[in-house]
């Protein structure tokens, strides 16, 4: 049936994407190019994580840094304080981020918070965690935590961006597989039903509370993996980086610009934003934070003129093109 072929096509496209990007990472030698690919994939991962809860679940979080920062701190603390191998710290970070997600989700969904109220609660939680991280000793307080440099694949510290690129690529592919599953599973169907109409979903046996909790758990786990990845690349984390609004904004802008609730939207959004950010950085020199200005402008333009994002608008154009092509042929016949 048509839906099965869609599913197959999606799986193929994920495989092709993984193959092409891995090959690029393997053959490219320029540090700039490798860095660009790595940072774009990292931004895609943030957007993909947000897309699970925001795009498929319709719960717009403004504080996804909460899960990012938690994953990052666990990754750093596990190595600095507990001497854990980073390959073990990464899943641990994802688990603890998930736990934080379940906690925030249970609190806010229990009381039916949605829309801007949910956004504000997540923002508030991220701020609370930032302030706590600034004051308690085990996060290194305001100074932050530095992960000691000890290069080696067994220590998840790579000689070049190539290794990190492959690491983040595998996380992005994991997120793609998860998104694919959301599009073709009962859980995903129920999640989208809750997003589109909660009462109608309840009437056909969907428990919105449980479904939203599941979505925030998955979203938080992916976000936590992005945080852990960040710590491995930059070997440093402080409260501002971990829980500040920058990451939250990057995650949601990527998903909204790319297309919410789609498979490739977050990846497309991240790519477009990174190309734009790099161009403006070259044009405007080293104005710090200029990329955030660009993100804001792009977001406003997209919401005004293409609310379905790049992929959604692309689809409409393609459908329109096919239709006008068909009409044209009909006229000739």
């Amino acid at each position: 049936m048509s839906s099965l072929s869609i599913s197959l096509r999606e799986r193929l496209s994920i495989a092709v994407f993984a193959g092409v990007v891995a090959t690029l990472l393997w053959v490219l030698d320029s540090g700039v190019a490798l860095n660009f690919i790595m940072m774009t994939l990292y931004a895609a991962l943030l957007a993909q994580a947000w897309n699970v809860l925001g795009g498929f679940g319709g719960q717009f979080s403004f504080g996804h840094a909460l899960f990012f920062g938690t994953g990052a701190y666990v990754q750093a603390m596990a190595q600095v304080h507990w001497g854990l191998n980073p390959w073990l710290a990464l899943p641990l970070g994802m688990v603890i981020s998930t736990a934080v997600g379940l906690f925030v989700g249970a609190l806010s969904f229990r009381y039916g918070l949605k829309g801007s109220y949910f956004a504000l609660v997540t923002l508030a939680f991220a701020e609370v965690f930032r302030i706590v991280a600034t004051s308690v000793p085990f996060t290194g307080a305001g100074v932050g935590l530095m992960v000691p440099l000890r290069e080696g694949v067994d220590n998840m510290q790579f000689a070049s961006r190539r290794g990190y690129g492959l690491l983040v690529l595998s996380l992005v592919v994991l997120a793609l597989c998860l998104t694919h599953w959301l599009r073709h599973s009962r859980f995903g169907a129920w999640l989208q039903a809750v997003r589109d109409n909660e009462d109608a979903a309840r009437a056909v046996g969907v428990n919105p509370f449980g479904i939203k909790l599941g979505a925030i758990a998955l979203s938080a786990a992916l976000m936590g993996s992005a945080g852990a990845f960040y710590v491995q690349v930059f070997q440093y984390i402080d409260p501002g980086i971990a829980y500040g609004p920058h990451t939250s904004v990057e995650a949601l802008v990527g998903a909204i610009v790319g297309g919410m609730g789609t498979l490739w939207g977050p990846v497309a959004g991240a790519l477009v934003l990174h190309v734009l950010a790099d161009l403006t950085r070259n044009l405007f020199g080293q104005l710090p934070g200029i990329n955030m200005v660009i993100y804001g402008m792009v977001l406003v333009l997209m919401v005004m003129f293409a609310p379905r994002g790049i992929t959604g608008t692309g689809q409409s154009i393609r459908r329109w093109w096919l239709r006008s092509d068909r009409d044209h042929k009909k006229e000739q016949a």
Partner: protein
Amino acid sequence: MSTALLSLQGVTRSFGGLKAVHNVSLGVPDGSLTALIGPNGAGKTTLFALMSGFLLPDRGRIEFDGDDITGRSPHLNARAGMARTFQIVQPFAAQTVRENIAVGAHLHQGRRSMALAAAEAVAQQVGLASQLDKPAADLTVAGRKRLELARALATQPRLLLLDEVLAGLNPQEIAEMIPVVRAIARGGVTVLMIEHVMQAVMHLAQHVWVLAQGELIAQGSPAEVTGNAHVIEAYLGHGTAARLQGQAK
């Protein structure tokens, strides 16, 4: 009457000072096709919301298949076999007709492909087969009403609560829909419908309850209730029954 699949005992619900539903008791027999009628604002939809768990009663008891379900969540009631449609249609607008119905089918069907296949079968049953791949937002009013029905039906309910599935349809669409509802009931599903279209009530219902200002004022066969003086007055105003009788003589 056979045993009641759904029974209400003294169910009351107020909104502030307004008694939307007051001391309503009724029993829906298993395997029956029944109707709930009444003037606008009588509390019919509120009563449906109380039955299906969307609202909590202030007082009273609701039983489904012998179990006390008073105050139980709608999703648990749906799992137990009670499905409802909404008077104001509630499609998952961003999704196609097929996907909409599949959400209902997923209640008892974990696999996506099986749920989509089940959706197709249900669409056939309610006459939506030709529109399966349309976005739900593109359907006409009649189409959306059918979709409401299809989605509820896809959960394979034992009891179907239909809230004005005929409202807003033109006579031809109504004539098309009546056999669909009858076929569902013949298939073994107990149906309770709220309906304003008397043509349908007269054709379909075996038993009718009349609700006015939150209270049950009459019940019986369609012919009985439409001849009932209380019912005529509830619809047309005090004294009308006597006047109509005078005219008839």
